[in-house]
């Protein structure tokens, strides 16, 4: 970035929801007041984000140095287009999600709702922190905070299964971040003396390709939130969480943070040029491509709806990393765009799954035959969501995938193009049957006869997100411009 201004806004954005924790936990006895706080914080955050839009689109980085920890390293925020894009996705999805949470939680009379909302808010500010992180240390700090604050959400049910899932979740994330990212970060600091992101990469030409390869692998797998195989299995494991949490995990906060970190490292620490010079981009592509195909294949075989969605998430995330790996401006732009597109699509799908569960108590796809007539809105939204994830018009997903394809063609990475197309077919293959069965399938289960739509609080948000993902197809500019800026054309 050429010039930059110093402003408290990034800090304010991070702090809004973090501070919201206090009133939320204080007003635990009065649910309405509690959720009022949640929404206030959400809207405030969004307003602040919009205030950042104007300078960033002018190509000005908004800086704020929070604290000097080590000589040469400080906790500081620096908002660029990519970060802003991600922050927008996260914050704009927070509001519908929490609306949905209310519906879901009250619908099922969940326990410890206050704890839930508090951690929810904390997780969101951690996400914002990751989005605005100006250097690797800051990124790492907020990454850890996110892992810790989402742990209570994952283990929310507190029964044996939930505990196992939660333990798996936290162990995977902490183990990888401490075991892989920390040494990589320290080695980087020792070699270069800095951790600041720069589009040129910070290693320079002195570092040997072998070292670079090791560091790259450490980073890629270290941010295990991005669910690269073989470090993906925490993701299905975390499916024990209540549905809104899975929605949050898979669409908004956690996995996207993982991917975001990977992109940051690839573009900001290594730098596209060095990668393509040392052919490391191919490594990334291979890892991501394999993950894409394998996860899609596994998804085909799942009958539990949420598990199937989870594996589809694993695949979609690797699209994003793949895009970055192609080291080509279209593809990178597509990757960044895919973060938002997939977010809207996938959150719709999860909300649908949750709504189905609330309304009919069904988890398994085989039991959803004919439910489409009983709850048309839900399944309509489900259709749109799956379209978006597969990447077909008229849904936003189409644009990002299109950009990715253009990238592969421009980079003349034919195998990758094959991967993309093939996996899209696979996506179609594991989404459409659900919808088809729901609408035209014969032999509806007897206990499903008198199922109605889920409560409004559940249905409204998912329709909302579905509509948004269609709107994004017609009018992708806000995200598109940001992505374009981020790629820097």
């Amino acid at each position: 970035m050429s010039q930059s201004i110093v402003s408290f806004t990034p800090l304010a954005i991070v702090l809004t929801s973090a501070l919201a924790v206090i009133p939320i936990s204080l007003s635990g006895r009065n649910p309405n007041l509690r959720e009022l706080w949640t929404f206030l914080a959400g809207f405030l955050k969004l307003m602040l984000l919009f205030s950042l839009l104007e300078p960033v689109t002018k190509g000005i980085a908004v800086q704020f140095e929070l604290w000097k920890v080590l000589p040469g390293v400080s906790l500081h925020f620096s908002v660029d287009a990519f970060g802003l894009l991600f922050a927008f996705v996260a914050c704009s999805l927070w509001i519908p999600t929490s609306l949905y949470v209310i519906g879901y939680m009250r619908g099922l009379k969940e326990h410890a709702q206050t704890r839930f909302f508090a951690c929810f808010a904390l997780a969101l500010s951690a996400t914002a922190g990751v989005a605005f992180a100006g250097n690797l240390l800051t990124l790492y700090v907020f990454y850890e905070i996110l892992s810790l604050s989402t742990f209570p959400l994952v283990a929310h049910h507190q029964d044996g299964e939930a505990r196992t899932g939660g333990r798996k979740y936290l162990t995977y994330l902490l183990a990888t971040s401490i075991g892989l990212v920390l040494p990589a970060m320290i080695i980087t600091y020792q070699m270069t003396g800095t951790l600041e992101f720069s589009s040129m990469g910070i290693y320079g030409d002195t570092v040997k390709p072998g070292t670079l390869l090791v560091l790259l692998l450490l980073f890629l797998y270290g941010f295990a939130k991005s669910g690269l195989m073989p470090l993906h299995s925490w993701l299905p494991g975390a499916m024990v969480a209540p549905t809104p949490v899975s929605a949050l995990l898979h669409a908004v906060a956690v996995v996207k943070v993982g991917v975001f970190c990977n992109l940051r490292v690839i573009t900001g620490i290594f730098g596209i040029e060095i990668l393509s010079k040392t052919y490391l981009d191919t490594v990334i592509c291979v890892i991501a491509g394999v993950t894409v195909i394998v996860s899609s294949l596994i998804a085909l075989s799942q009958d539990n709806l949420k598990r199937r969605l989870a594996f589809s998430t694993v695949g979609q995330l690797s699209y994003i990393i793949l895009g970055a790996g192609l080291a080509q401006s279209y593809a990178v732009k597509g990757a960044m765009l895919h973060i938002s597109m997939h977010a809207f699509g996938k959150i719709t799908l999860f909300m649908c799954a949750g709504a189905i569960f609330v309304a009919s108590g069904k988890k398994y796809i085989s039991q959803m035959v004919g439910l489409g007539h009983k709850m048309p809105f839900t399944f309509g939204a489900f259709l749109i969501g799956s379209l978006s994830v597969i990447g077909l018009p008229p849904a936003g997903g189409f644009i990002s995938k299109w950009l990715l394809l253009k990238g592969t063609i421009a980079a003349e990475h034919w195998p990758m193009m094959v991967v993309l197309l093939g996996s899209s077919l696979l996506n179609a293959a594991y989404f459409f049957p659900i919808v088809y069965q729901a609408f035209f399938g014969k032999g509806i289960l007897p206990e499903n006869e008198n199922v109605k739509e889920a409560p409004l609080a559940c249905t409204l948000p998912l329709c909302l997100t579905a509509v948004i993902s269609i709107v994004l197809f017609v009018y992708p500019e806000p995200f598109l411009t940001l992505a374009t800026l981020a790629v820097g054309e």
Partner: protein
Amino acid sequence: MEQQYPVLIVIIPMFTAMVLTLAGWFKPAVCQPLAVVGLLGSFLSAVATLLQIGAGEVISYRLGGWEPPFGIEYRVDSLNALVLVMVSLVALLVAIFARKPVEKELGNKISNFYTLFVLLVTGLLGMTITGDAFNLYVLLEIAALTSYALLAMGRGRAYMATFNYVILGTIGACFYLLGVGLLLIKTGSLNMADIGTILPKLVGSETVLVAFGFLMVGVWIKMALFPFHGWLPNAYTYAPTATSCLVAPLMTKVSVYIMLRIMFTVYSADWIFNVIQWKPVVMVLAVVAILMGSFFALAQRDIKRMLTYLIVAEIGYMVGGAWTGTAAGLTGTIYHIMADGLMTVCLFMVIGSVVYRKGKAHFESFKDAFQSMPWTMGALIIGGLSMIGVPPTCGFFSKWYLISGAYQSSDYAFIVALLISSLVNAILFIRIVETAFFSATPSEIPDPHAHHEVDYADSPVSMLIPMWVSALALIAMGLYTGEIVTRWILPILPGGLI
């Protein structure tokens, strides 16, 4: 007055101890307040001393007014000033914390307890501040004797554990004394700095080498480095709560400090890393200590015992860091001396208050602890995060420096050991937090707001305050790492390091 601060640090608690004996023998109730006042005094003078010291300068205080090699001298540079502040702070916190547990556990020995407590602190402070090798031995023995007594007050199995500690501790102290003797016979001096100036003329003398061996082994026994760690877990586990809160954080750390003194003030970094080739051996010891401590900790069901094994592992951190022979590694060690002191005291206080409430510190006693004693568990979480090494707690930064040092001297085994141990810590604390957080299944909880009805029995305020002071100190220290390192640690790093 200003030039008297160094000696005040030591003699204030010493006088407090005497007053405690005389007053406490007739009126035990006055003991704890007196102890707190005395330790506060010594803490304040320690801070004053620290602030007096500019970058890299040394305050020399002549006891009895005789000039150094002939009289005993106190040498304060920012290294021991930092340790002094840490020790006196921890002691102060524990003294405040101790009130209720002591009343509960050692009802009719209160005055004895506080006298020994304050004398132990005196010994540790004296060891830290003195510049005279033999004076160090005497204070070492004071600290040792008091800790024997304090540990043995735990009754039952504590006696045998303490007896083993007495035997091993005496061996350690005697080895130290023997090493000092060998140095004396070659140099004719007892003042560490003076010896340090004479030794370079004696290159190639086996006596000096053997003396170094005896000094090191002696100190290692005292700090329970693998393979001399046998006495530690039992001795600390069966001790009374307040005792283990005081002894566990301080004893080992001060011994580490002494090791640094011997290595870099008496001997020189150049001699240690270029003349003699011990580094590989010691690194192996450190690595084994870390791994072994971590894995034994995994096997424990009693949290207090688990922590004692973690202490063994932490010793491995510090020894390894110091022996990497890099500036970064040594920085990490010095920083970790303080960080670990604070973490350990925080965690032990948490365990102490759980024991105070629930009787013992098994996993079972942590069930539902989050509902019944939320504040205590909050402190536990912060301490645990620091143990795991999650920023911005100070545990993260000590690991940062240690790993950097190991990377520079390419001791990759040490790096791996560090990472493994922090993973093990992660697993351990996840287990505890899980039991404390999610032990109740929804079925057991009648209504959404159940946790408001669960009986709230958090530890008394007199225990919560020091606990939280230490917990917050962890975070504050982490945030001020840059300050501490650049202002106080970097200026005193000896030459001859990578």
